[in-house]
Structure formats: structure tokens, C-alpha cells
């Protein structure tokens, strides 16, 4: 980088290459919209059934709804174990937070991806295409969720058990050493 930014950089805020790259980006994206037909962007009787709404909506839903919700839920989750964090059984403690996060996120991911089948949305077109109803999907998703929870409980029990065993052994060794 030059020690003294030139006049262009002072006004624009970056080097000319930056502007060149972004100009190319907007030209190509603009051309794609032109080819689609700008009127198509909002071409709908129902306001939310337009490509433009879905385009912006995706970014808004993920950044301003999904992530804040997840982060709020995570904050609650982290607050609970902290309240019971007491020194009494310090050595035994296996933090439970990730054993809750993982099954919830796994189940949530499957819901996010496969919700049309799970909530039976698009019944008619699904039946016309496949000859089958969407009946089994809700049950299967619930069973998978139960499976994730069980696996998590199992993993936690093993970690907890192993932790306890280790602590007990250590304490016994200390006692024995003290006796010697």
C-alpha cells in the first residue's frame, strides 16, 4: 500500500481495483435482473410471492430472526447452569450445555430443511408428483429428535460416569498416598 493514499482513494475509500470488481458485479447482477424482466420481481397478486421479497426476505429472516432467536435461546441455556454453578462438586462437573445444544440444533436443522414434508405443506403437488401423501414425515422427524436426545443423554452419562470414576480414583490415590 502507498504511504499516502491518492485522491481517488481519499474520496472513494479504496483502490480503483475495488470499484472495478464491484462495477463488474453490479453489471452482471443487473443484467440477470434485466433478463428475468424487472417486472417479474414484483409480479404477483400476493405481495410476498415475488422473487424480490424472497430475495430480501431470506437475508432478513436469517440475520434478524433466526440468529437472534438462536442466540437468545443459547443465552437462556447458558444462564441456567451458571445459576447452579457452586463449588461443592467442582471436580465432578461435566458442562451440560453442549449436550443440549447438539440435539436441539440437529433437530432444528432437519426441521429447517424438511419442514414442507413435516408440516405437510404442498400436499397436492407432492401427491401428484409421487403418488404418496406426506403422512410419515412428521413422525419420522419426531423419532429422529427423540434419537438425538437419547444419544445425547447417553453421551452425557458416559462422560459424567467417566469423570466420576476418574475423580474417585484420584481421591483414593491421594488417600493411599496420605496413608503411606
Amino acid at each position, binding site marked *: 500500500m502507498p504511504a499516502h493514499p491518492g485522491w481517488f482513494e481519499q474520496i*472513494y*475509500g*479504496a483502490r480503483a481495483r*475495488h*470499484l472495478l*470488481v*464491484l462495477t*463488474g*458485479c*453490479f*453489471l*452482471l*447482477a443487473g*443484467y*440477470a*435482473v434485466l*433478463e*428475468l424482466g424487472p417486472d*417479474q420481481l414484483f409480479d*404477483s397478486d400476493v405481495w410476498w*410471492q*415475488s*422473487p424480490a421479497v*424472497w*430475495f*430480501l426476505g*431470506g*437475508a432478513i*429472516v*436469517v*440475520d434478524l430472526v433466526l*440468529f437472534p432467536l438462536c442466540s437468545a435461546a443459547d443465552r437462556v441455556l*447458558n444462564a441456567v447452569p451458571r445459576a447452579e454453578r457452586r463449588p461443592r462438586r467442582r471436580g465432578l462437573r461435566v*458442562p451440560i450445555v*453442549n449436550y443440549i*445444544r*447438539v440435539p436441539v*440444533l*440437529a433437530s432444528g*436443522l*432437519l426441521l*429447517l*430443511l*424438511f419442514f*414442507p*414434508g413435516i408440516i405437510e*405443506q*404442498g400436499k397436492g*403437488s*407432492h*401427491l*401428484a*408428483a*409421487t*403418488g*404418496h401423501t*406426506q403422512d410419515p*414425515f412428521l413422525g*419420522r422427524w419426531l423419532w*429422529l429428535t427423540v434419537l438425538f436426545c437419547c444419544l445425547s443423554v447417553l453421551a452425557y452419562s458416559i462422560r459424567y460416569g467417566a469423570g466420576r470414576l476418574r475423580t474417585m480414583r484420584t481421591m483414593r490415590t491421594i488417600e493411599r498416598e496420605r496413608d503411606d
Partner: protein
Amino acid sequence: MRWRSPIRGPWLTSVFGAVLLAALPVVTLTGLLSYLAYAPQLGQAIPGDVGWLKLPTFQWPTSPAWLYQLNQGIHVVLGMVIIPVVLAKLWSVTPKLFTWPPVRSPAHALERLSLLLLVGSVLFELATGVLNIQYDYIFGFSFYAAHYFGAWVFIAAFIAHVCLKLPRMIESLRSRSLRTELRTPLAETHPEPPDADGLVSSDPAPPTMSRRGALALVGGGSALVLLLSVGQTIGGVLRPLSALLPRGRVLGDGPNDFQVNRTAAAARISPDDTGEVWRLTLRGGDGDVSLSRPQLLAMPQHTADLPIACVEGWSTTQTWTGVRLADLARLAGVGEPASAQVESLQRSGAFNDAALQHNQVLDPDSLLALRVNGADLSLDHGFPARIIVPALPGVHNTKWVRSIEFRT
């Protein structure tokens, strides 16, 4: 707003970025190839007119027969598998969305606008794709047109983002060793040093997950999606794994017990039209040729194992028996057809006719199938006769064929 994640930082963002840098071009390219597989030169790709926005057109080959199965399998499965990575990448850069002041310079404003295009288009493509493979058309607009032009907005924004950020990504990846991170437990997990982009929290919470834990979480999510989606592409014993997808069902042991693409009932095919009155009409020669099903069955029969592979990424390979399309072309008096137009008994719908390229008519495995797995086709699978051509997109294997016009 306070960002407190102690593992957020340029290194973690760059790891997700590197994965997407490898995967997203593959998803995009297979999508653009699929457009060519629909043979835009025959005027039947959707959307029809795309101006300059397509790969150089070439004649989609018929060999290997599983080419379209592979292409769409990769497009759909990989597209789904990267969803956890896309979400993780977006999560890792959320502080930048709320950066203050929102605009520092014209350059900053333009770059943020390009990022809106990038995030908007990637989520748009993923959302419409995920809905489409589940036959959920709640979005209301034309999937094909929106998904195709949306892809070009994505391509524009993605290339720009890579041009502007690649050096930063490489630099960040070099700032820590992946091998060391994979050996670092929670107790030794510390925030990355402060960065120019402000990803690293200035007030980090105590870590509850190591960096390797976060990578395992995202990777595990991707692995789970892979496990639940690959079965409907590969089929066989893996099919039931796609338990939450429309094509995960094993239908039975019968010769016609495989996945149906559009039922006869939905296509309004009446048994009256497919009974003894049914005739296949061949056009293109001096006069029309009309053939009954017994006459077709009396012609030389050829058997081939061919997949039906749909744009939605599912497929099923069966053993088809019928008359070679090349034989029918000769019978019609057109030995070297440039293309063929196949029409179905189905009166309405986007795919009640399809054009076949020269090579698709003449491939020795291209059939007008009458039987499947040793039995007559069922009505749902296109009785009295259907097209089956190697490596052809599923919907172009026209069912309930009424006529074939060979064009020179």
C-alpha cells in the same frame, strides 16, 4: 449490541469460507450444466431466453448413462450439505452486519450492497431449491426462472466477494494451524487476537465450546444432511435413509414398484386412451406410420439398464425393454433425424412433450420402452409406451407417448 462469542474471529470465518469457496462453484456449475441438459438449442430449456447468461451450449451426451444422475445428485445433495456451513459462515460474520457507522465511505457502501446481493442470492437459491425438491411451491413464482437468474446474481456477487476477500481469507487461515486447533480442548480455547474487521469480541464470554467443537458441530450437521439426502440419489439399500425426503420410500418388490414422476391420475390419463384403441403415430417421413402395441412388441426388442434422474436430484435405475428409437426413425423414413419431437397423451402440463437431440434418438440404448423389469409398464410409469434415453433429464422421458415426429 454486544457480541460475546469467544470463538468468533477471522480464522473461524475463513475456514467456513474456504469450504464454501470449494463447494459453491461445484453447486453452481452443476446447476448451469443441468440447464444445458435440457437442450436450450431445441428451445425447451426453462427459462427460454437467457441472453448471454449460460455456459457455451454443447450437445448433452448420452454416455455415461448416469451422467445426469451424477450431475443432479451433486447439485442437490451438495447444495443441501453446505446449508449448515452457509449458516455458520453467516453467523460468524453477523457483527459486521451491525457495524457502526453503517457506511464509512462510498467503497464501503458499495461493498455492503454487493454483500446484500451475495447473502440474498445464496439464501434465495438454497430456499427455492430446498422447497422445489419437496414439491412445495409456496413461493408462487416460476421456480426455474427465479432459480436460474438468482444463480447469476449469486455468481456476480460471489466472484466479487472472492476477488475482494481471498487475500484476507488466506492470511487468516495462516494465522492459526488447523492441526493445532483440532488438538485444542475447551479449557485451552482463547479468543483470536483483535482484528481489523471487528469479528473478534472485545468482551468475550467464557468459552463453552472449543473451535474444534464448533467445526465438528457444523461438519456433523453437514454429515447428517448428507446421510439423509444421498439415498434418494443413489437408490438401492441407501434409499430408505432419505426418510424425510419425497423419494426415500421403498415401494415393494414388484417390477413396477419404483418411484413415479407424476401419476397417471395427476396427468389425467384415461384408461380409455391407453387401451386397445391406442396407436403410436410416427411422423416426419413421406406419410404417417401408425403402430399398435402388439405391432411394436413384434419389432426387435432391446433391453437396457437406465436411470430416471430428475432435476430434483432423485433417481432410480431400472431394466427397460422396448423398441430402439433409431429403428422407429428408420421405420418412419427418417434415417438420420436431427431431432425428434415426442408428444404425450397428457393434454396439459409443462412436460407433455419433449424434443430429443440427434444423439439422443440414435443412441442404441434410447428406447420407446414397453416393458420394465420383465413386465408391462404400469399406467403410472407410462403404459402403453414411454421414452427412456440415457443421461436425459427425467421429465424429458415422456410417458404415455402418443406420437413421435422425426425432424431433419
